[in-house]
């Protein structure tokens, strides 16, 4: 992107990692080291939703992921001055527990006497809509639902809106829940046969073209089903387009989560940046379609100090098919 886009707010509801009170306080040392010995399933540490969703009736109606997504969004917006000019959400599987609940009663009750609430809340745009309703925001509202590029599609849309002057700030975030059924299915599909684990989480970001912050979201790139060599070419093109040398990338946040079947591409990219410090995180979060939003959150926490890396590259792929790069820059004013 030609325009400079700042990340002025970030929030995360995620399985592990202490929630520090203020942003930009992390260093790479704060990230617990990789251990893949624990359970293969990560569940979020959830906040007390009462503080965010004050209406008890509304809270009761909402499924866990709706509360997680909405709360992460409200946490991100707290302290923000103006209302964002767009709300863009992303999710791979959406509101799974409500989808399952409606399907179950549909089958068990043989299509009779169905409660519509889980159906209503099963739609993929439920969280985006609830954010709009709860903040009374009638602006642009979109939801991207495409596997490993859901979150990056939302980011790209938001960045273009800022670049084109369609909005001065945009709220972009993702949410994913792991249910017992989806975990069963993933296990049966053999996703953890060779390592890795299932996870969930919600991350939201406020992007601004006007208000400055220590973290600049420079650019994104996508690759669909590339060969390892095509991926390296894509990475090289991406750096070139942004006038960045390999050696300028001081930190690589790699999506390698210990799954042997997904290792080839991560290994290729990590080896492509031999001088770069590599940070991994999926041992904390588990893997899910929109997990790269956690990598971005981590990036925002590391940026902005005198000794922060000047440039961070985030690389992730989902099941070897959807590959994405995000380039961050630190802006530090003494």
């Amino acid at each position, binding site marked *: 992107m030609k325009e400079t886009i700042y990340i002025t707010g970030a929030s995360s509801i995620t399985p592990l990692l202490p929630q520090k009170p203020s942003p930009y306080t992390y260093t790479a040392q704060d990230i617990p080291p990789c251990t893949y010995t624990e359970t293969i399933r990560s569940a979020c540490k959830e906040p007390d939703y009462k503080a965010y969703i004050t209406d008890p009736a509304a809270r009761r109606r909402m499924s866990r992921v709706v509360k997680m997504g909405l709360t992460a969004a409200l946490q991100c917006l707290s302290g923000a001055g103006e209302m964002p000019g767009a709300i863009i959400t992303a999710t791979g599987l959406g509101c799974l527990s409500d989808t399952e609940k409606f399907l179950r009663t549909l089958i068990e009750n043989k299509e009779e006497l*169905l409660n519509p609430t889980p159906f209503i809340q099963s739609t993929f745009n439920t969280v985006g809509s609830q954010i709009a309703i709860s903040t009374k925001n009638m602006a642009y*509202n979109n939801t991207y639902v495409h*596997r490993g590029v859901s979150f990056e599609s939302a980011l790209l849309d938001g960045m273009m*809106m800022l670049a084109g002057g369609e909005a001065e700030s945009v709220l972009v975030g993702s949410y994913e829940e792991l249910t017992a059924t989806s975990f069963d299915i993933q296990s*049966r599909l053999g996703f953890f046969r060779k390592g890795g684990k299932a996870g969930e989480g919600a991350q939201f970001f406020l992007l601004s073209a006007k208000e400055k912050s220590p973290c600049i979201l420079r650019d994104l790139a996508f690759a669909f089903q590339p060969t390892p060599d095509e991926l390296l070419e894509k990475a090289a093109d991406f750096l070139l387009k942004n006038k960045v040398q390999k050696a300028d990338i001081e930190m690589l946040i790699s999506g390698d989560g210990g799954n042997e079947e997904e290792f080839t591409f991560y290994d290729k990219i990590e080896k492509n940046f031999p001088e770069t410090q590599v940070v991994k995180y999926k041992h904390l979060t588990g893997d899910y379609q929109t997990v790269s939003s956690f990598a971005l959150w981590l990036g925002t926490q590391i940026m902005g100090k005198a000794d922060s890396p000047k440039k961070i590259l985030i690389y992730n792929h989902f099941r070897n098919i959807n590959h994405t790069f995000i380039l961050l820059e630190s802006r530090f004013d003494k």
Partner: protein
Amino acid sequence: MRIVVSGVGTVSAIGLNVAESLRALAGKKSGIEPLSLFESGHKGKLPVGEVKADNRMLAEMLAIHPGKTISRTALLGMSAAQEAYGDACLPDRKNEGLRIGFISGTSVGGMDLSEHFYADHLQSPAKGRLRQIISHDCGDSTEKIASRLGINDYITTVSTACSSGANAVIAGARLIKHGFLDCVIAGGTDALCRFTLNGFASLKIVDEYPCRPFDESRQGLNLGEGAGYIVLEKETNRYPQSYGYLLAGANICEAFHQTASSPEGNGALLSMQKALQTGNLQTKQIDYINLHGTGTPNNDMAEGNAIRRLFGATPPYLSSTKAYTGHTLGACGGIEAVFSLLAIKYGLVFPNLNFTTPIAGHGLIPETEYGENRRIKTVMSNSFGFGGNMSTLIFSAI
């Protein structure tokens, strides 16, 4: 930079392609019939807009091996996207080096298969055919369609309930305007399934009779299925033919209620106003509105009130095509974009079937006859969805 539409493709209850759809529209032939597609307590009773081809026939038409498990959402999408892609002559334009994207809207994804899996899975977690669940997510149909067309520069999926298709078009135009892509195939696809049929039935907004959009006696919607895609291009591309410009798109959220529209139509009004503003247009320049017009008491009251507030005593030609196709959910923004472009290209106004009496509140009278040789330069197409996600597209003649 202006965005040109160079190709269109659609499949719905009124036709397996654009030519068939046009014939049905002209012949006032609705595709709404009692449910026959799958086993359900509603089978043989509830009227729906089924695409008149089962999965086997669709696979055969697409030359896909019948043994392959592919969701109906993907099959319908392939059919319409392929028609649009071919219509824009993209298979013969490989040497132009275009960066092509595919953006699809869907609200159910591969649910038509997952609901079978889940019924078995409920009996025991070890049960259920895995090949019926791997296409559950919305991205699956998009990737299958894109792979068939050989598109890999950018592929993504939008899901904002019934405005998904329209929002895919808006997102696609933005990607071209910002120079990220040169050409985008955008629209939506959705298949009928037990999940959505029972979902809408549980909300008590499904009519047991053929739907009557904008009629005082309307009782609800008929669900439909299908797909519609349009090819968006940079004006400077060497496209062989054109249907019109995509002048503007507006996406807003009414932020009122998860499923209902405000009766006075605040969201619909804002959506149409914003589209006019973006396109730098006056209300008098709009020649025809392809209404969202689902036939539910709530939508047709809210949308009509918004039209009255915006257009006053002399609104343009109005009609809902949902009494032909049923409400195709995530696909309707795509299908109705195709219809709107056909209206411009051939000077047509499509009839609003099953209308006799205006709604007391706003008294709007939609067109009831097929109109030919009309001066249709600019068309507005509305798509409103659950969650208050409301979108308006405006197309104009070149």
